[in-house]
């Protein structure tokens, strides 16, 4: 609760709202004690006095009544009626909601049908009908406003009660022989009460406004008694000659509604944990690059060359070093496997290449990504955009989430082409069809007109691959493209990627946590742990004779078909959280061979020829 209040008051606007509404409330409560003129004493000789005249701080109205006094008494009445309406609506609405939710079945059905009917009315029609039946008057306006808001409470509270009614403690109470009434009062009500209070606090401003509105129309408080709405309504006749009589109550309504809104927003934000993590931030078109050291000047190797890449996530005061100086390159026609557990930084590495890491919170803080002799990290948005999908394309995991759900897959293919080439739609469609055939989608012509949700997982993944291939890129970065698929489909997809690379001389960076996949497809592999490469080399060499203890343990985790009985070794412990990495080897705390030296200072990635390892106690010598 204190944490909640702290959060609420950290929000300056909400605090301001709280202060304003609290002062208005205090003023309204103290009104009878203040030395004010009688609000209803008329003095027509003094009518329409301007504000700041002698004896009348805010002037007088059309009957010469003191506006300040009427304003404070009117505020008091408006607040009282609005709050009373909120209480009535909350009590009756919640009772209906609890009964519907608790009993369920036919009772629930019948009640909620009725509530739905009430919600089919624009709210004012219902309020007007009630006032029409009961006759104008403040009490009737209160009843009307409360009645109109009952469905809102009934609906919200029913939802919560339904989930509570199935819980163990309610069953336990029932088995203990408690009656329905007693269960509702002792078990259900205390649990829904906070929700009722929050719903009330967010609607009370609204109800104050609605009663003021009815009074404004002349259907609420009747003369001489005045609330803010009827003050405004009466002043309307003299709007042009004496505008202050309208402005004074109008501003008061505005202040009340705005402060309640500010406070309500603050409450909502404080209760929504997503805002705390900054997850509701919009990722920019391109990852923020903020290099703390100059980019390496090393000449480019291969077609795509990552040099000492560092990518971090800045969340509040914490810095997560997701990628801590990774160097990788891939040659044309080559397939490089990047392997590691989840959270090892392999996906972030891949997304950094084309500036696709969500930013905020992602920031690229160092290194270079060289492609075509250019450093992509320094490139302008437009220059990067031209290469995205055209020169370097991505295949993502889980194509149900990565394909736009509302566009036909054919149109998404066509868009990929037309973003880079000025070709007609029919030409682009022909090209899309060609690709669908190349990735062996059956009935490709009719499939072009499917939406993603109409296809199977394997088909969607093929679409993802076709979309990456459509502009004949030089490099494809495939981020676990087969993880969501079953084994036979996976094998087909891998064979497909292999064919495409051999036919077209395409370079593939293949990110996975699966050694089986790596063995099947990749020429070389790099093993990542806690944001760094711990070992790299030709696939067969690394798999047959892993040098880093981590690689060895990873391989030992893979069951082998026909490999006879053997103990499957899990790696003890968990990968480290990358906001507070220890010095030296990040794997040392989980490593059987660790010595104190392992955590003393930087360990370099050393090796000879194609193989390298970052370990001072390697399993195999790589020299």
């Amino acid at each position: 609760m204190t944490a909640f209040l702290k959060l609420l008051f950290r929000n300056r606007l909400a605090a301001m709202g709280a202060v304003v509404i609290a002062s208005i409330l205090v003023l309204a409560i103290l009104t009878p004690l203040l030395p004010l003129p009688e609000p209803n004493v008329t003095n027509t000789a003094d009518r329409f006095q301007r504000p700041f005249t002698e004896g009348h701080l805010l002037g007088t109205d059309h009957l010469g009544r003191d506006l300040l006094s009427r304003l404070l008494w009117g505020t008091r009445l408006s607040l009282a009626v609005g709050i009373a309406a909120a209480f009535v609506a909350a009590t009756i609405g919640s009772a209906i909601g609890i009964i519907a939710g608790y009993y369920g079945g036919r009772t629930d059905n019948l009640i909620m049908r009725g509530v739905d009917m009430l919600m089919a009315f624009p709210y004012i029609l219902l309020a007007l009908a009630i006032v029409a039946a009961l006759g104008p008057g403040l009490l009737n306006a209160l009843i009307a406003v409360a009645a109109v808001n009952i469905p809102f409470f009934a609906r919200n509270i029913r939802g919560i009660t339904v989930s509570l009614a199935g819980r163990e403690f309610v069953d336990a109470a029932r088995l203990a022989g408690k009656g329905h009434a007693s269960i509702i009062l002792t078990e259900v009500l205390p649990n829904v009460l906070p929700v009722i209070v929050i719903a009330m606090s967010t609607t009370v401003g609204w109800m104050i406004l609605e009663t003021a509105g009815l009074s404004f129309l002349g259907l609420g408080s009747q003369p001489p008694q005045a609330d803010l709405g009827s003050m405004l309504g009466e002043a309307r006749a003299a709007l042009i000659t004496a505008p202050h009589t309208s402005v004074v109550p109008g501003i008061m309504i505005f202040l009340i509604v705005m402060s309640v809104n500010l406070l309500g927003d603050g409450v909502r934000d404080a209760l929504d944990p997503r805002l705390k993590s900054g997850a509701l931030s919009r990722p920019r078109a391109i990852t923020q690059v903020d290099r703390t050291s100059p980019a390496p000047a090393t000449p480019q190797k291969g077609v795509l060359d990552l040099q000492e890449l560092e990518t971090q996530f800045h969340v509040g005061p914490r810095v997560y070093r997701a990628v801590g100086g990774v160097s990788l390159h891939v040659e044309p026609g080559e397939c490089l496997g990047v392997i590691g557990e989840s959270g090892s930084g392999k996906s972030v590495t891949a997304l950094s290449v084309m500036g696709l890491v969500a930013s905020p919170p992602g920031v690229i803080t160092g290194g270079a990504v060289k492609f075509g002799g250019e450093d992509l990290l320094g490139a302008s948005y437009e220059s990067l955009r031209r290469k995205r999908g055209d020169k370097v394309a991505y295949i993502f995991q889980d194509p149900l989430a990565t394909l736009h759900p509302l566009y036909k897959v054919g149109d998404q293919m066509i868009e990929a082409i037309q973003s880079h080439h000025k070709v007609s739609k029919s030409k682009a469609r022909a090209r899309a069809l060609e690709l669908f055939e190349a990735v062996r989608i059956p009935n490709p012509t009719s499939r072009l007109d499917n939406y993603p949700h109409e296809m199977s997982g394997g088909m969607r993944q093929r679409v993802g691959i076709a979309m990456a291939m459509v502009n004949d890129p030089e490099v494809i970065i495939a981020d676990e493209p087969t993880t969501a698929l079953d084994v036979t489909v996976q094998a087909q997809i891998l064979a497909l990627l292999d064919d495409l690379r051999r036919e077209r001389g395409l370079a593939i960076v293949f990110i996975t946590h699966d050694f089986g996949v790596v063995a099947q497809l990749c020429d070389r592999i790099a093993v990542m742990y806690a944001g760094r490469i711990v070992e790299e080399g030709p696939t067969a060499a690394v798999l047959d004779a892993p040098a880093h203890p981590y690689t060895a343990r990873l391989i030992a985790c893979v069951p082998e078909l026909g490999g006879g009985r053997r103990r499957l070794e899990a790696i003890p412990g968990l990968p480290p959280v990358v906001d507070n990495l220890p010095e030296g080897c990040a794997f040392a705390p989980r490593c059987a061979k660790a010595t104190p030296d392992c955590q003393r200072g930087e360990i370099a990635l050393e090796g000879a020829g194609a193989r390298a390892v970052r370990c001072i106690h390697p399993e195999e010598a790589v020299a």
Partner: protein
Amino acid sequence: MGAYIVKRLISAIPVLFGITVIVFLIMAMIPGDPATAILGSYATPENVEKLNRDLGLDKPMVQRYFIWLGNMLTGDFGRSFSLNRPVLDEILERFSATLILAGVSFVLCSLLGILAGVVSAARQYGFADKAITFTVLIGISVPSFFLGMMMILLFAVKLRWLPVSGMYAIYGGGDLPDLIYHLIMPALALAAVATGVVARLSRSAMLEVLRQDYIRTARAKGVPEGRVIYGHALRAAMVSIIPVLGIQAGFVLSGAVYIEMVFQWPGIGRMLVDAILKRDILLVQGGVVFVAGCYVLFNIAVDVAQGLLDPRIKT
């Protein structure tokens, strides 16, 4: 799609039926004798009895309801005693004025609200976002009737740009430019609150969508950022914006009652308020049922639009 529309229309029948029941029950709460209420306290007992018989008030309630319903279905909403003309004629005339006002306001609040929300989301934490968020906060806090009055003071009285009130000029006028001239202020005043609500919701819907994987895919394909925001993201955000537009239509219709009072707009809201003050129950009853019915049909149109937009909804 055709079958879906028919299905939705059929599902509206019980709702429309329910609306008539609710209105009838509310009107049955009227204390005392409606005939006395109409004729006033000086009426002779014979007159009261005759009127009760004419209105069918001497029959049992259930029977009265079905007579009333049957009459309405044949287009007979009864006769307004205060205006001495058929209720339906009055309703149709007044509702068309409201429809112009509320319709224009609804279009305004949808377009301005979505645009403001999208710009705000696309420039999150930038100057445009802060300016829009602040304006929206003011917009949703000003009661529409007060806003309307202040607009009259500024634009009609002080600057003399726009007419104070009414739908057409009293002398001459009556053509479209005259209507538009008279419509600007009330339409804007009515749209203000709803625009704010739509802008807020659009902003959060866009922020939610912009974090989705398919937006990253669009960027990875090299789709220009403008198209990512105004194409991919907005299209997906519309799925959650459209239902809110349906709800806002109800609020615009409700707010029209106040705006019609402030600007002397000859719409159905003013008709209802006048009818309540004159205790013209048949006019209130007919007006409420008619507008609520139109609102139900409008919401079906919203559902259909949603179905057209989102192929995942089984139509």
